[in-house]
């Protein structure tokens, strides 16, 4: 790309114009290059390689003697009960965290926008979970959920081992997911609310629209692009969640909180099944892209 720019005889006429454009294009390439090289080497390249690995029997320990196995990993995935259970857990987790956190954040953003007393404090607090390392959030909630030394049992007068209980572990980590993600969603929604022109509300009031009507006919439509952007991002982040749950439960008890990424991590780095784990990642990516595509497409159609 760098050494091959020597061109024969300067072109004339319409081609000279094209050369003018190509100067700008070249300028752009030069500016892009420092980012492009690492992106290709360490991101796009590995991604394509990873997709390729999904169709091989690669194991981490002997990658250089792998064989192409076509869709074998995929058919194994389809019959793997552990995959289906983790897929189901992932879907429950991602949908409930995204939806609940959005609803809570929307309510909260509306509240904070009203400039109540303490809303300053609430705003400051909102930043905290966002800034905390996910590992610390996990450890902190482990302390809250701790069967003996935890505050939750004391508060509720119960004697439950929240994170080790087969039916309570998933709801328990969903609460943590909401706690960790809601503040960021709130801050983004709040910024969106503040960008809505005041005149719209004034006009609405003059037309005699009540609070509810103004919310339904002004706030929601105006907020729509922000809502679509943040819920899609949240969904993607949640479905790809790893660190938080790794720290909280490591996928236990009995796999009840084993999100797809934890499952994939175990396959890849405990059992060293690079090919199978890659297929798992690829399948998840396709599902996520499909869900997201459908959601964005519907949103766009409704917006028209």
């Amino acid at each position, binding site marked *: 790309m760098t050494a091959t720019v020597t061109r024969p005889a300067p072109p004339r006429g319409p081609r000279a114009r094209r050369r003018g454009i190509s100067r*700008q294009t070249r*300028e*752009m390439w030069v500016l*892009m290059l*420092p*980012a492009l090289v690492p*992106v290709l080497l*360490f*991101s*796009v*390249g*590995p*991604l394509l390689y*990873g*997709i390729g*690995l*999904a169709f091989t029997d690669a194991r981490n320990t002997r*990658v250089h003697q792998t064989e192409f196995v076509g869709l074998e990993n995929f058919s194994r995935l389809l019959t793997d009960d552990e995959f289906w259970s983790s897929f189901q857990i992932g879907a429950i987790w991602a949908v409930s965290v995204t939806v609940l956190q959005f609803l809570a954040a929307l309510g*909260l953003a509306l*509240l904070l926008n*009203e400039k109540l*007393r*303490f809303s300053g*404090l609430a705003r400051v*607090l*909102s930043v*905290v*979970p966002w*800034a*905390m*390392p996910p*590992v*610390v959030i996990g*450890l*902190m909630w*482990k*302390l*809250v959920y701790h069967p003996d*030394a935890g*505050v939750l049992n004391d508060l509720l007068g119960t004697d439950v081992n929240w994170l080790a209980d087969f039916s309570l572990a998933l709801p328990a980590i969903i609460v943590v997911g909401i*706690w960790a993600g809601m*503040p960021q969603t709130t801050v*983004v929604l709040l910024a*969106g609310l503040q*960008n809505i022109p005041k005149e719209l509300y004034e006009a609405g009031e003059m037309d005699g629209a009540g609070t509810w009507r103004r919310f339904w006919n002004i706030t929601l439509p105006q907020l729509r692009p*922000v809502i679509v*952007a*943040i819920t899609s991002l949240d969904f*993607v982040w949640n479905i*790809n969640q*790893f*660190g938080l749950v*790794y*720290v909280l439960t490591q996928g236990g008890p009995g796999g009840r909180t084993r999100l797809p990424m934890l499952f994939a991590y175990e396959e*890849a780095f405990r059992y060293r099944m*690079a090919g199978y*784990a*890659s297929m798992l990642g690829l399948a998840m*990516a396709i599902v*996520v892209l499909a869900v997201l595509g459908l959601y964005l497409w519907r949103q766009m159609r409704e917006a028209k």
Partner: protein
Amino acid sequence: MRRASQYVALVAYVVFLAFPLLWLLSTALKTPQEMALTEPTWIPREPTLANFGDAFGEQDLVGASLRSLVVALFASVITVLISLPAAYAMARYRSLINKIAIGWVLVSQVFPFILIIIPLFMILRDLDLINTLPGLVVVHVTFTLPFALWMLQGYVRAVPRELEEAAAVDGASRLRSIASVVAPLLAPGVVATLLFSFISSWNEFMFALVILQDPDVMTLPLTLVRFTGPEGVARLGPLAAASLMATIPSLIFFAIIQRRLKSGLMAGAVKG
């Protein structure tokens, strides 16, 4: 009546947000004897700072913090240095690569880490970079890059193109107009992006878990997890103390950049 219910909701939110944090603080200040009581106390009876000292004794927190600091510094500076020109190009030139770049930024958020980390693990192993900090820096740069690009191109877009054109009319070369007109206006955005990348790297766990397996090279998040011990039995006091300490740098940085980050996010997410 409406006000009252609003306040109830606000208080509920504040309690939900603050309670785990206060519990973390309370746990960090308890003596081992108080920790062992069957009924946990909410406020430590004899608050002590001993856990903070013990935390350093139990794990190599100083070393881990230094390593996290070095990795985060290198990763964030490199990220911003290489994404700045690219972000400028993305914001100022309209062309196919521009669209591809934006597409890649979005796609990179969607693909599960496992698809990248396995090949990356193999590449780094071939380069002898597994269990090394430079290896982690490389990974952190590639994972913070998309978002940094996104933020920075938003900031560049916010600088009116006319300013550059005016400088060009005044006879300034392109580089000169960038240096004297664009750069000063862009500085706050660059600082925000730098801090954001720094914190992302400082907090990052997943890639570090895969790349650093030797306790001697572990970063802070990995070292914190070691407090829970192999069987999940933990000395809770030091664990809480160490967790608090690990959060302080992020809190300081976020307090500084909160406003900027918000506007940067908005610029990238909505106007993009």
